[in-house]
């Protein structure tokens, strides 16, 4: 269990550091589209190295390949647009909004695969809607000091 907690803390640190790196990327004026391409490309190289050495490389079944390809494109577009967005807003609210996107797979699972909607799930989706509205309200009510004019 202790090893599990160490892995859990490593996961927490890694995911949190991603948010910080996005903001840092904005501060050092990294190019959002190249950041997205390099993030996905280098992660692919790391995964390939891991697959070849640790996991033992095996061929990718065709359905897995065709499922992964378009969804990877969406993920890369998310990195690109997010890197562009942090230039205009705070990292705290931006990172939260990105994490709230869990509402999309939840909603699609309900709509496409007929998953049941429990009270907890319905309450969570309502809270996500409320959070998005509050963050939009917060953003429109403030002086636009975070937005960089050259963006």
């Amino acid at each position, binding site marked *: 269990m202790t090893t599990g907690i160490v892995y859990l803390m490593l996961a927490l640190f890694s995911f949190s550091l*991603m948010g910080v790196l996005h903001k840092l990327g904005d501060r050092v004026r990294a190019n959002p589209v190249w950041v997205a391409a390099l993030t996905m490309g280098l992660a692919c190289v790391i*995964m390939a190295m891991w697959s070849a050495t640790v996991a033992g490389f095996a061929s990718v079944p065709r359905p897995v390949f065709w499922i992964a390809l378009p969804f990877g494109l*969406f993920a890369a577009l998310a990195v690109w647009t997010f890197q562009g967005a942090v230039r205009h807003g705070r990292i705290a609210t931006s990172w939260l909004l990105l994490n709230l996107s869990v509402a999309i797979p939840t909603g699609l699972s309900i709509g496409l695969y007929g998953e049941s909607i*429990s009270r907890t799930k319905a309450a969570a989706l309502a809270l996500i809607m409320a959070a998005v509205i509050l963050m939009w309200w917060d953003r429109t009510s403030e002086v636009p000091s975070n937005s960089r004019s050259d963006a």
Partner: protein
Amino acid sequence: MWFRLMILAFVFNGLGDFGLRVLQEAGYASDYKSHYLLVWYLGGAIAVAAIALRIGGKITLVDLGIGLGLALCSVCGQMALGQALAQGIAGSVAYPVTKTGGVFLVAIVGAAIFRERVGPIGLAGILCGMTAVLLLSFE
């Protein structure tokens, strides 16, 4: 501009995550997750690199450094989360800790290092959002 880009990022990120659910429905999730991630990263890289080559201009060392950092964190986070679950940490603990803990940590870093102040409406939004993520994680 922030809200428009964030809504796009919100939708794209959610769709990107939905692939795992499709994989699960197809019956490949338990045996082929690392294969899936490999092609997932590859698909995104090829498509966005094609766009970057047309409109992105030159790659700088800054782009490379940030991209490498994000790539390492992304792979490390996915692997560590998978290992934590494999070591017996319950999903009902692992997901809330990584999701809400991550949002909380990033908010602290934003205030401490980047000197970002969040107003009362924004704080209410953060509270609503973290509660929602907690509720979904325990589902």
